[in-house]
């Protein structure tokens, strides 16, 4: 009996060891690719790795970085959300319209927050209450929210001129600007929520097995709604940095942002099927995409070739990731679909 128990423990630790090795690669394999990417861009363009460029790189991608936090929750819990890009546009439009009407930036900001939260609430209620697949609900939102933003502004940008915007764009302390602070806040808050609170715990649980979670007595509906509302807040932060950067609310702002965010989460090593994942991985994925965007555009690449290169770089990174993990497992890696 003793021996059996000891044996069992040892074995489960062996499994854990392989798991840890796999996790390490998932976490740091991309970091390596990231290094290579930075090196390439630096060789081609010596100005790439300057403080100024790094700062502008972060600021350029602040909305992506912030939204990716919410997307991480969405993917872990298997409630994908395609609406944030459109929602940033709509919430920005609400901000701008209310600000134009009242001249009060605080009211504008609150209007933006209200819109972001209301739309996400609407998504959540359709998913939880009516039981429609999150992909279709948020796909529809992706369409109608963007459409609303376009029609409310007649397809043209609304300029927002306010001291607050100036502050967001020009304030700087030791190279840290407000958008960078917001990124930091988003990741800290996200990390805390994901690792230290029930919301985070149930995010993992929902992605693992929703039925079992419910049977354990968790009010899954409540926490799902809470999760979408939280996403609304992250979207709102994304709206603030987007509007500040443009100095206006553009109905076509943040187009495709949701896909970039999903790619960042996945490429960072979080599995698409949910149930596990971490913000650290997301952060690496975001950096990768950010460097890619920035590097390609400083090379002066446009449209078709830009996208082609971006697509190939992403595929290469994934290829590397997968191959290195398979190498680690060696030739005896269990084939697909096998129990390990």
């Amino acid at each position: 009996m003793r021996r059996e128990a000891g044996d069992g423990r040892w074995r489960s630790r062996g499994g854990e060891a392989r798991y840890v090795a796999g996790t390490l690669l998932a976490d740091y394999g991309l970091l390596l690719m990231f290094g290579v990417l930075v090196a390439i861009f630096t060789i081609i363009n010596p100005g790439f790795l300057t403080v100024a460029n790094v700062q502008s790189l972060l600021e350029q991608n602040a909305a992506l970085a912030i939204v990716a936090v919410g997307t991480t929750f969405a993917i872990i819990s298997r409630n994908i959300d395609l609406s944030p890009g459109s929602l940033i546009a709509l919430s920005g439009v609400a901000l701008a319209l209310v600000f134009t009407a009242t001249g009060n930036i605080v009211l504008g900001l609150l209007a933006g927050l209200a819109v972001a939260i209301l739309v996400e609430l609407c998504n959540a209620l359709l998913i939880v209450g009516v039981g429609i697949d999150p992909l279709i609900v948020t796909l529809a939102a992706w369409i109608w929210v963007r459409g609303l933003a376009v029609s409310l502004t007649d397809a043209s940008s609304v300029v927002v001129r306010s001291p607050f915007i100036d502050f967001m764009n020009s304030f700087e302390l030791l190279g840290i600007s407000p958008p960078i602070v917001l990124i930091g806040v988003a990741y800290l808050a996200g990390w805390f929520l994901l690792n230290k609170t029930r919301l985070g715990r149930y995010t993992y649980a929902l992605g693992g097995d929703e039925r079992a979670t419910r049977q354990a007595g968790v009010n899954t509906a409540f926490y799902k709604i809470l999760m979408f509302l939280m996403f609304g807040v992250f979207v709102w932060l994304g709206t603030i940095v987007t509007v500040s950067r443009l100095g206006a609310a553009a109905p076509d702002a943040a187009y495709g942002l949701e896909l970039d965010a999903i790619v960042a989460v996945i490429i960072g090593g979080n599995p698409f099927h949910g149930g596990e994942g971490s913000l650290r991985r997301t952060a690496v994925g975001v950096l990768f995409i950010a460097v890619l965007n920035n590097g390609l555009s400083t090379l002066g690449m446009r449209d078709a070739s830009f996208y082609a290169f971006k697509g190939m770089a992403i595929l290469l990174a994934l290829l590397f990731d997968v191959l290195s993990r398979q190498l680690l497992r060696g030739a005896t890696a269990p084939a697909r679909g096998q129990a390990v």
Partner: protein
Amino acid sequence: MHGKTRVASNQSLTVPPALEMRGISKRFPGVVALDRVDFSVRGGEIHSLIGQNGAGKSTLMNILSGVYPPDEGQILIDGKAVTIGHPREALRRGIGTVYQELSLLPNLSVADNIFLGREAGNGFVIDERVIVDRARAVLDLLGETAIDVTARARNLPLAQQQIVEIAKVLSHEPRILILDEPTAPLAAEETRRLFAILHELKTRGLAIIFISHRFQEIVAHCDRGTILRNGRLVLTLPLAGVTEEELAERMIGQQVEGCYRTEDQTRPDSAEVLLEVNGLSVGDRVHDVSFALRRGEIIGVTGLLGAGQNELARALFGIAPKAAGTIRRRGREVRIGSPAEAIDQGICLLTEHRKQEGLFPDLSVKENMTLPSLGVFRRGGVFLDNGRERDAVRRFIDALHIVVRSAGSRVRTLSGGNQQKVILARWLMRDLEVLIFIEPTRGIDVGAKAEIYGDLVRLAGEGKGIIVVSTELPEILGLSDRILVMHGGRLARVVEREAATEEGLLATIQGGHADGV
């Protein structure tokens, strides 16, 4: 101890039972799963719910634990009528359930699983340290010191997962404890420990509802039993002095035939060797195992959980990573790298993971059964011959007594035991020469078990070679011509049928080497 029980039963005369279910009915599309069932349990008793596969046991318990609402009927707890609309409510009312299928979240740690839904802390922020400490304490209480509470649930073997599941429910400190086939994945030792715990809980006044198809456990440990048949109550009876046979007869409504093979059916050693295994190793799980399976022979493989018997079987089907050694089919060396290759070589495997590796829950009984055999039902090379396919499926539904509305029903809607029969039928239908079954009768009721044993014996008689991997000793003893006992990944001993006794086997299983060797 004795005095306490008497007090409890005295109380029951004056105090209402801890739990009473009155006139419970539940219909699913086309099935009356429960028909006005009355059921009551007292505090301080272990009450067994008994019935064939599909009798409605799990459904009754699911109603009690808030998974379904009943169509009719009343639930009373301590004499007060209650409604239970959600699992959360059941837990709040002190009803804890170990479901028939495991429900651990694979990526959460053991501790987090145990306290899922009641995380320590202020209700939002979680205090992980407290959770770990409490989980440790709960498992210590169960005498399970070997389980690492910070390990991920998916890294535990099935039996330990089951223990964690039980710990999770017990940590709710329920007053009514429901255990739906908790012993199915457990071997003798774990089962013994589980019952020690249950007896302890019983003296503390818990009402315990226990479901199992192993009558041995029921008559040894349960105080009363309630028998269900086809969704109706047959009777509730005290179990003191009742034998397994009587119980089986009451449950089925008729006498059960002797189910194991008789002496004279043993094959001679001269029969052709169907499968020869030499020096088979699987990573660090199995070391250097050799044996031969002859035509007409049933080999039983047993051992403690995790002694390597499952990996051995998986290696023969091409799904064990790092397998090494030689396998010969009818004298010719073959390479088996995948299930497809194994099936080409006439070998099939039924694994113990019914849910993950066996069933297609949303496909029909028919589609589940015929999937590997579709080649047989083809007409003109391309299209399937539905008529012939359906006939074949009907034959197996009848032969194995699968309780199902039609061959087109989703497998998801079948009871646990009936699901098991469907995947068993899948391989019986495929008609291969070497059949390897891991825990083939898990969750199957005694009547159907007898039929399945009969089928296996008949198949062996028709010239197949069968390997049964099981931790259930009566099954191994009753079926096998030869018994391989595994210990720590090695073949510890080979016992011929005539020489096998339960005591001798147990000694080898536990100790690794026995008197005789």
